[in-house]
């Protein structure tokens, strides 16, 4: 694909709470190229948002801290930048869209002001020009009457419009990387379709790399080029979109795909849920966090984190189950029967 924008290697972000250390992100590595969309998939508490915030060094400290890993933006290590330098990166090189458009915009500042702010800060533009650009950006993300809308406050926008405004704000400085953290979770499905469209369009126009954080595998299937599956702060599997959906190697990925009801299913089949409850982040086992819920668990799993195993082109998995056994098991799962060819 395009040029390599970001290389994350062994990122660990921990929260030092009174109750103990929460290993929210634990040794996560991934890369992002220009024009590429990386989907980070996981359930709540899997560490996906923390990983994204770590990239922008927006982890609230205390209690959070990036304890390990390198975050290379091009040839700059984000971890080593001064506060001033990282501010230059934020909004300018990496921009972010947040989950809840209702609370992520400052309620007492005009939309135009909030967009123009980043432009003035990073692009050395005057106020008038920045506002003009803000209006253009709003128009770009599909907000009608943009000229009028810049002078409105967030409460005058609907949820979908706010998320569009957030996107406008994020792309205002033409960032290399756009992080979208559950951008559509709070929105209705028809609005979700609109927003996904806008993100795709903007990515095309600005040639950014996009990190899409979501728990919705449907959304991932729609726009991601590659996928990273997280569980309990760890990457359990990553790979190209087709690899993950059609050739998954990790029992958790299997479980996720198996527990989804699908709109395109013709006959009514029983779902195959993952047993048990989500893990307690404070008492994660030293081995695989999926133990206890994994149907194919073995003694090693609890104590030792498996090394990354490359199972295909750009497809890695961290699992103790031997590869042939994995294939065998997968083929027996009802969900994958139709891919079994």
């Amino acid at each position: 694909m395009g040029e390599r924008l970001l290389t994350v290697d062994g990122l660990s972000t921990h929260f030092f709470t009174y109750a103990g250390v929460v290993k929210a992100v634990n040794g996560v590595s991934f890369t992002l190229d220009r024009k590429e969309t990386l989907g980070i998939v996981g359930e709540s508490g899997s560490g996906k948002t923390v990983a994204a915030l770590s990239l922008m060094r927006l982890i609230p400290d205390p209690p959070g801290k990036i304890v390990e890993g390198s975050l290379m933006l091009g040839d700059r290590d984000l971890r080593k930048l001064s506060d001033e330098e990282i501010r230059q990166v934020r909004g300018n090189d990496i921009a972010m869209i947040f989950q809840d458009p209702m609370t992520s915009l400052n309620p007492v500042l005009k939309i135009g002001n909030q967009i123009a702010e980043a432009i003035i800060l990073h692009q050395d533009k005057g106020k008038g020009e920045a506002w003009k650009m803000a209006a253009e950006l709003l128009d770009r993300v599909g907000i009608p009457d943009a000229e009028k809308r810049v002078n409105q406050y967030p409460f005058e926008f609907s949820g979908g419009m706010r998320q569009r405004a957030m996107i406008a704000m994020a792309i205002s400085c033409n960032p290399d990387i756009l992080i979208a953290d559950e951008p559509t979770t709070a929105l209705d499905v028809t609005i979700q379709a609109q927003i996904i469209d806008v993100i795709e369009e903007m990515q095309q126009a600005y040639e950014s790399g996009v990190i899409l954080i979501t728990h919705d595998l449907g959304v991932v299937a729609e726009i991601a080029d590659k996928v990273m599956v997280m569980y309990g702060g760890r990457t359990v599997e990553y790979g190209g979109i087709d690899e993950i959906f059609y050739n998954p190697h990790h029992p958790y990925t299997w479980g996720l795909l198996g527990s989804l009801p699908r709109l395109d299913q013709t006959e009514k089949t029983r779902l195959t849920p993952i047993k048990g409850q989500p893990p307690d982040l404070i008492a994660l086992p030293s081995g695989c966090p999926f133990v206890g819920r994994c149907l194919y668990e073995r003694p090693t799993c609890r104590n030792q984190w498996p090394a990354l195993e490359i199972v295909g082109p750009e497809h890695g998995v961290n699992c103790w189950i031997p590869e042939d056994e994995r294939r065998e098991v997968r083929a027996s799962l009802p969900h994958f029967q139709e891919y079994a060819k």
Partner: protein
Amino acid sequence: MKKPTTRWRGLVILAGVLIIAGLLLGACGSSSSGGGASPSAASSPKPGGTYNFPLTANPVSIAPVNAQESEGMQVAHQVFEGLVKYQMNDKGEMGAVPNIAESWDTTDSQTWTFHLKKGVMFQAPVSREVTAQDFVNGWNYVTDPKNQSYVSYILAPVEGSDDGGYQVDPKKGLTGVTAIDPYTLQVKLRYPFSEFYMTLGHTVASAWPVDYMKQVGAKAFGLKPIGTGPYMVESWKANQAVELVKNPSYWNKDAAGYVDNIHMPIIPESQTVWLEFQKGSLDYSVVPPGQVAAAEANPKVKSGEWSAKKWPNLAIYFIGMNMTDKTLGTNLDLRKAIAESTDATNVINIVNEGVSLPATGYIPEGIPGYRADQSPYKYNPEDAKTIIAGLGTIPTLNYWYNTDEGHQKIGEVLQAGWTAAGLDIKLSNFEWSTFLDKLSKGNQGSGSQMFRMGWIGDYPSMDNFLYPLFQSSQARTGSYTFYSNTQVDALLQQARSTVDAQQRYSLYAQAEKLILTDMPAVPLYYYRDFRVVNNRIGGFVFNPMGFVDMWTVWVK
């Protein structure tokens, strides 16, 4: 976030609490040291300057119609004059001497003729001579019920008035007072009253221009009244200050006043008055409770920059007892025991800091005819204890006082004494209005038993300390004791019509003795007023009626 540095936090907090609280409160302990100005040598009176005299409350009224409490009367005292004025004689007794009246005569103590001085002038802008008709008009005005005077009772003896000082028939007016000619005023009384002339120094009986008041309206007149006195009201800002200026055309050149202005700021808290005085912005101050000794020992007093003195006051503090109460009213032994265990010494020494004087009767020293040691029941706690022990079980007795720090402390000392004698006393305080209301319903089961009460003389006469307090028809509102003794009533009536002074005094003394023997009220102390004045001012006199004759002061 368990950092080691957090350990001191609790300590800092505790230390902070203690230090700051201590600083705030303990720092006030030391008192300020004296300034360096040396007192100017005594000199002869000279005109000019301003006299700064605080008032401790906003006056209710400063005009004759209604000037009634000490603050209003203090102002009125400088502005208004009556037929007589009160003056102390060589023997230290107060008496009434001619003022606007040159002389008066009566044969039967019932019809009185006053001869007025010529050339007594009202202040500007009225600026005309005072005539007998002015008194007729003024007295008629104040006794007219629709004018709501609350001090007209002073004129109650005059024919045409009722016991409360209101005209019986407003259409006829106050029939007893007539102007024979511009300089002769005739007053007929409803009954013989030998000391009637003494009552006429009261503000309500002063000369004031009723016609002018009708011209400008009662309200405007109330704010800036016109009298004949040496000082005129310049302004009265409610709750702020009263300003007086010298009357340039005062008729009596002998008492024309020296200072040009009298500034009377209204300051309700005695503590504040005292602070302001210490700052030098006042020439006269009361001293807050607990600070008398400190004030006397103040370096500025020692150096003569200030003077501190206890001035006698014709007033008495007593403990009333509800004679209609089941426990108290019928039990003379109990009342006697209460009197004998009433610890006046400690009240005076501890609470009043030695300012007041022990009372041995109802009539204070300084009243013509005063006799010492009238009370038959001297302080004798041992005897009281024996009496009470012999009385069997006595239910808890109430002692009431009106809400005030000083009254409370007196109550506490008294309670200690009575308790030591074997009584069980419950203290309660009520706010003044409620207090009077409850006391006045003492015969209707309001629960009133023992209570504090005071009496400040309206005029310096024995009558004023006995008749309104203990005469049977008066006792319910005078002393609130509901005391009634026909023998006492007869003696008082007889004294009133007795012209000969010595004979009269003896009758009053007999009545006083009788009342004291019945003991409806325990006399506690005679007031004295502790005042500190700045010696920047000369000629200061605090007269026993509680007034300062400001025309005698001058700025050194």
